[in-house]
């Protein structure tokens, strides 16, 4: 009677009542068994992990990334699957988005304002720029937000955090691959000539992915601590698009602003990508500057990311 009234329990054990009715543990034997055989074999296969303090500095630890490589695959797969669950048109959105964007820009720049896009018809010109640009913009936006939306993982389990933004970029690559079908269709429609330049297409996609990763890692790491970035990012992305020859050709940029295109790796990559479609000769100087900036930025970003990584769980 007393029990009902007072809900007595010694240690607020919600579980003990449920667990105790059955003797949970078989009585241990009187004399401890030798368990050493097992533990020794475990020791033989054991990996050694050293956890150093925050003061110990940054290690890039690329071997660990390789060790966890399958996780990148699963995180990418998750990002792709989740994005198109509960959508009516599913992956079709990957094609619809650039298609509609190209239609809009074609209407504006081909009908109302006449732009000289050289040998490429404007829709093809715009699509070739927009495909790479939309990939870049989405990859950067998604990877910037990726750490915050995976806060529950970061505070509960260890794995190389680099893979979270990297998976966002990789998922974008898959989308790009699908959207590429649209570009191929348009190329066939306009009868684009096959040239050796086409062989360099994967290189430009790779460069764009590395650039997206470089920018994404940096902004993702900074966003964990400074949430402002999330709000500022859409404007930065928009500005960046207009500062790059995505919907207009580089040739329309006045001579005194050309240096801006030179230091903007997006410009170099997109121009190079278009050159490989038209068979026009590449601007090797511009390309190598873009590649150099991309690689430098990526190394810097990985370093910054690794540096911030240790405190993610504490500040997120």
């Amino acid at each position, binding site marked *: 009677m*007393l*029990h009902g*009234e007072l809900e*007595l*329990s*010694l*240690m607020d*054990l*919600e*579980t*003990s*009542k*449920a*667990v*105790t*009715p*059955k003797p*949970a*543990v078989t*009585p241990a034997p*009187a*004399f401890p068994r030798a*368990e*050493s055989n*097992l*533990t020794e074999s*475990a*020791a033989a*296969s*054991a*990996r*050694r*992990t*050293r*956890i*150093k*303090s*925050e*003061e110990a500095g940054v290690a890039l630890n690329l071997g660990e990334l390789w060790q*966890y490589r*399958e*996780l990148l*695959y*699963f*995180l990418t*797969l*998750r990002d792709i*699957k989740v994005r198109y*669950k509960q959508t009516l048109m599913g992956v079709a959105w990957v094609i619809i988005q650039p298609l509609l964007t190209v239609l809009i820009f074609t209407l504006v720049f081909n009908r109302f304002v006449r732009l000289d896009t050289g040998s490429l018809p404007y829709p093809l010109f715009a699509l070739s720029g927009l495909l790479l640009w939309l990939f870049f913009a989405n990859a950067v936006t998604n990877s910037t937000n990726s750490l915050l939306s995976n806060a529950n*993982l*970061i*505070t*509960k*389990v*260890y794995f190389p955090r680099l893979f979270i933004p990297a998976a966002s970029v990789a998922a974008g690559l898959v989308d790009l691959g699908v959207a590429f079908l649209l570009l191929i269709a348009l190329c066939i429609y306009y009868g684009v000539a096959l040239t050796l330049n086409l062989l360099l297409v994967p290189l430009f996609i790779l460069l764009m992915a590395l650039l997206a990763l470089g920018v994404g890692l940096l902004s993702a790491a900074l966003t*964990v601590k*400074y949430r*402002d970035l999330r709000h500022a990012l859409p404007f930065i992305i928009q500005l960046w698009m207009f500062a790059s020859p995505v919907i207009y050709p580089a040739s329309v940029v006045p001579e005194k602003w050309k240096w801006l295109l030179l230091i903007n790796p997006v410009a170099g990559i997109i121009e190079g990508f278009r050159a490989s479609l038209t068979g026009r000769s590449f601007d090797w100087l511009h390309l190598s500057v873009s590649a150099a900036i991309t690689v430098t930025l990526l190394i810097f970003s990985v370093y910054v990311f690794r540096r911030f990584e240790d405190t993610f*769980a*504490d500040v997120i």
Partner: protein
Amino acid sequence: MKPAIKIENVSKRYRIGGLHPGYMTFREMIGGVVTAPFRKLKSGNGHQTLWALSDVNLEIGQGELVGIIGRNGAGKSTLLKILSRVTKPTTGEVELLGRIGSLLEVGTGFHPDLTGRENIFLSGAILGMRRAEIERKFDEIVAFSELEKFIETSVKWYSSGMYVRLAFSVAAHLEPEILMMDEVLAVGDAAFQQKCLDKMHDIRGQGRTILFVSHDMAAITRLCKRVVLLENGRIACAGGPREVVQHYLSSSLKTGAVREWTKQTEAPGDEVVRLRRVRVRAEDGKTIPVVDIRKPFGIELTYEVLDEGHALVPVIEFYNEEGTELFSTHDTNAQWRRLARPRATYTSTVWIPGNLLAEGSLVGHVSIMSHFPATVLHAYERNAVAFQIVDSPAGDSARGDYIGPMPGVIRPLLNWSTEINETTGANFK
């Protein structure tokens, strides 16, 4: 043999409030840069720091199952987070030998929009399993979770019990050499909890090292051979589960073998009766915190009746350290039964015979009630006394010559008889 976990001088500092909140905006940062020098001048130190752990040293051998207990904020979770590499220590170093698996929550990495199957792979990979390994164990994981029928359903349609079952099944098949768990057993229904405990027992049987943080003293005492008590980020004591749990209970409950209320107004009770003292006593009248299992002992209540005319019944309930209620006892002696008591101070003692209760830590909840005209609870004090029953190695208690652990909450010394049915002398020679 090298220890599986070696923690050396580990400290963890968190910055709270002040200059470094959890995160800050650029504006705050820029503002901070401008005002920082002045702030430093003003207060000397711009931010508050909290040492979640300070100078923790601990070695855990391979194959050990160690429990970590302590109050909220004592640093248990921080320690586990450091060991599972979620966060880094501010100073100090940790060395781990073997594959590490950590379960700081149930369902790490689960995504509600993905199916059970997809989540097994995702969660498995996040917890550190190889794809081939997950494929190999997939059927086993599904069978353990008993969710065969729903494995192609998005987990957001699962009930919370189903979700937990799937999540634990993945975790249980992790097969790490060092497993760290934080309160994960506090979920699921009784049958599933039993399954989890069995699984943990299996894992231990395989010589793996387990670190187990819990508030569940029952599980801690049952499963662990060694327990570490954390207090304010330091190791307060470490040792056998019974001693450490007892230490924790007595320090956190502030209860011992005697409890006294010097001020009437602060004493538990109402306008009718106030409890003034509770103690555990031996036959010779001494207060004893440690009781010999073979000897009878008394719980003595001293109480003051402030309002006459009530028939009062003292009641004591006994709980063991696992939170199991052993029994409760009401005063049924004819001396004061159904009799209105005059105003006075009374001392009532209940005697518990020797060779009745099992060894371990016990606490007594004390109450005083009356039943006429209706049942009223006048005074009630949880954890009024705590004491320890110890068994005897002399061979004259219920354990005889056996020295290992004995299960059960009672340990009566019973009569056994054995007769010889027929003499088969030749066979025994």
